[in-house]
């Protein structure tokens, strides 16, 4: 479409005071997103509203679809149209999207889904916080797959990780979930947007061989095939059926083994590059908190308070939730006597930590069921209990 808008900035370099939802929208735009398809849902709607305002100015398109199923289908279509694309929703909407997230995983379609979590199950707590979609993000669609999910703890990270989510989706060719929560989405904080040239932007690898020689699902050692998209003359063949390197359906056990192994292994083999963690005062810790998102803010406050009392406690903040940092948790289990997991659900990350410590240390969840956040004092009490 027209290109007469050079004066309208794409990257809003500078200092802002804004919400997590708006920061995530701007991070997506900075990453190169030019298509948003979505459906209104609290507490994520401000992302759609911001994209409706911003995208047309920079030659992008915003489409409000008839439901979340259509939204994610449109996002996948736009990605195959050669445009970085995204949607934003909350738990109920994510539930409607999971079948097509599976299509995106099977067809290796880069895109980003933001889930601003609220309390569930079902309609639950539309306006209040939850962190209950951790397992849904991991296992929501059917079949075997690996996914990437990132969890911001402040407004700056909403921008940074939205951009990172696009980078991962383009680099590894899969739908990536940014797992925000209602408090992070709606809180206002300082956001610093760097100059455009300081941002690292990754875009999908393109094929270099001619169309008649091209095998769209043949990968090199990276296990991620280059991606030809519609209109480039490659006559892409895209199907959710198990397919061979040509993209043609092949319903044999051998083809299934090869295809499914690769879409899993491309993430498993690269998980060290994908897993991002913040370690806070862990060096001499005898008790570790493991937390993420909004809960990690209160957890950090609890560590500060505990340290003032001379208690050796630290925080491992999970910025990447999936793939799960099994090795890091396993090492932590060798060091500390106890791991406490403050989370706003009934034990989803706690269950993963229990799995990863191999029984080497005590694991205790500190749960809120949704609608309220922990205070640092409450977590401190949990640390001091025994």
């Amino acid at each position, binding site marked *: 479409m*027209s290109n007469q808008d050079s004066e309208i900035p794409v990257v809003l370099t500078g200092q802002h005071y804004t919400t997590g939802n708006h920061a995530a929208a701007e991070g997506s735009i900075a990453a190169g997103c030019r298509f948003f398809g979505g459906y209104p849902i609290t507490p994520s709607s401000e992302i759609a509203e911001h994209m409706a305002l911003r995208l047309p100015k920079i030659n992008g398109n915003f*489409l409000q679809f008839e439901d979340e199923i*259509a939204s994610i289908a449109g996002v*996948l*279509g*736009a990605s*195959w149209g050669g445009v970085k694309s995204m949607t934003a929703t909350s738990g109920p909407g994510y539930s409607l999207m999971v079948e*097509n997230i599976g299509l995106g995983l099977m067809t290796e379609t880069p895109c980003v889904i933001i889930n601003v979590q609220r309390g569930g199950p079902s309609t639950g707590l539309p306006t209040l916080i939850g962190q209950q979609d951790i397992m849904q993000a991991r296992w929501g669609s059917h079949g075997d797959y690996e996914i990437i999910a990132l969890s911001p703890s402040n407004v700056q990270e909403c921008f940074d990780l939205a951009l990172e989510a696009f980078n991962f989706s383009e680099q590894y060719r899969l739908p990536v979930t940014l797992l925000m929560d209602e408090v992070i989405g709606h809180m206002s904080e300082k956001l610093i947007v760097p100059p455009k040239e300081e941002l690292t932007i990754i875009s999908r690898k393109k094929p270099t061989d001619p169309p008649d020689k091209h095998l769209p699902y043949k990968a090199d050692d990276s296990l991620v095939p280059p991606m030809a998209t519609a209109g480039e003359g490659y006559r892409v063949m895209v199907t*959710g059926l198990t397919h061979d390197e040509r993209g043609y359906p092949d319903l044999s056990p051998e083809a299934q083994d090869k295809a499914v192994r690769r879409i899993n292994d491309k993430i498993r083999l690269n998980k060290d590059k994908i897993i991002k963690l913040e370690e806070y005062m862990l060096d001499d810790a005898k008790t570790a908190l493991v937390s993420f998102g909004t809960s990690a803010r209160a957890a950090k406050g609890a560590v500060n308070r505990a340290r003032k009392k001379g208690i050796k406690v630290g925080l491992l903040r999970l910025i990447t939730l999936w793939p799960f940092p099994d090795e890091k948790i396993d090492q932590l289990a060798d060091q500390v006597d106890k791991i406490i997991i403050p989370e706003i659900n009934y034990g989803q990350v706690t269950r993963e930590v229990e799995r990863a410590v191999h029984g080497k240390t005590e694991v205790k969840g500190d749960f809120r069921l949704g609608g309220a956040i922990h205070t640092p004092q409450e977590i401190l009490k949990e640390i001091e209990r025994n």
Partner: protein
Amino acid sequence: MSEEEFQLIEADAHPLDGYLREGRIPHIFCPACSLGSVTNILIEAIKEAEFDRKKISVVSGIGCTGRIAGYLNFDSFHTTHGRAIPFAIGLSVTDPERKVIVISGDGDLFAIGGNHFIHAARRNADITVICVNNFNYGMTGGQAGPTTYVGQYQTTAPYGAVEEPFNLPDLAASCGAVYVARWSALDVRRMKDSFTEALLKKGFTFVEVLGSCPTTFGRRNQLAEGKKILEYFKEKSEIQHGADTKTVRIDKDSQIIVGKFVDIKDKKTLTDHLMAIQRMSKATGKKG
């Protein structure tokens, strides 16, 4: 054709060479299924419309008709059940020059995907939707669907279907489609002309093709051979161009009205609206 008229055609090339993915043949369609000829006619229409082949994308959902996209040597997308239309909209709006064709079945487009159809028509999305209506779910073994007529026997309607069927041209027209036509699988030339017209027209264009499905529809409804179904279409069909779509519902043993029912000129399309929004957004001083 008598024996003396029969002669082997020798040729170095098939007229459809290059338009089908050779590696995907043989296809999965049953003997006497009309999907082979519909595929052929669609290719002929695409050729006639003289599009840049790079600019064509074909999108299908799931089901027998849903397999057509994958046989065509264009950018082709075999998506999830019912979701071909919104996928196609995503493809369409990312390049206004792209021609996006959705071809799928009645169950895919009007049962599980019905919501997307009505909204795509309402928005006047720039896509051509072809529905091959075979009155049942063929691939899953012959269950009743949204176009199954009252009294039709299917595996999930063993005592005869009782629900009212959709009248597809009327649904499309009432939701805002700018082009609506219906032909039976027998009307190959008229079908091709309609496909070509629909492809060349901007906006949401819709063609219903009444398909012959001897295997899972015909067998249970005294039409067990493909030829019998075509004969039935021939006997019952009546061309009424411009017919009021309210009058074209198909019932058991009823007349089948075919023809071009709707052809609206100069209605703004979704692409037009999106480009207008881009212009407006740049003209206003609205922050952001």
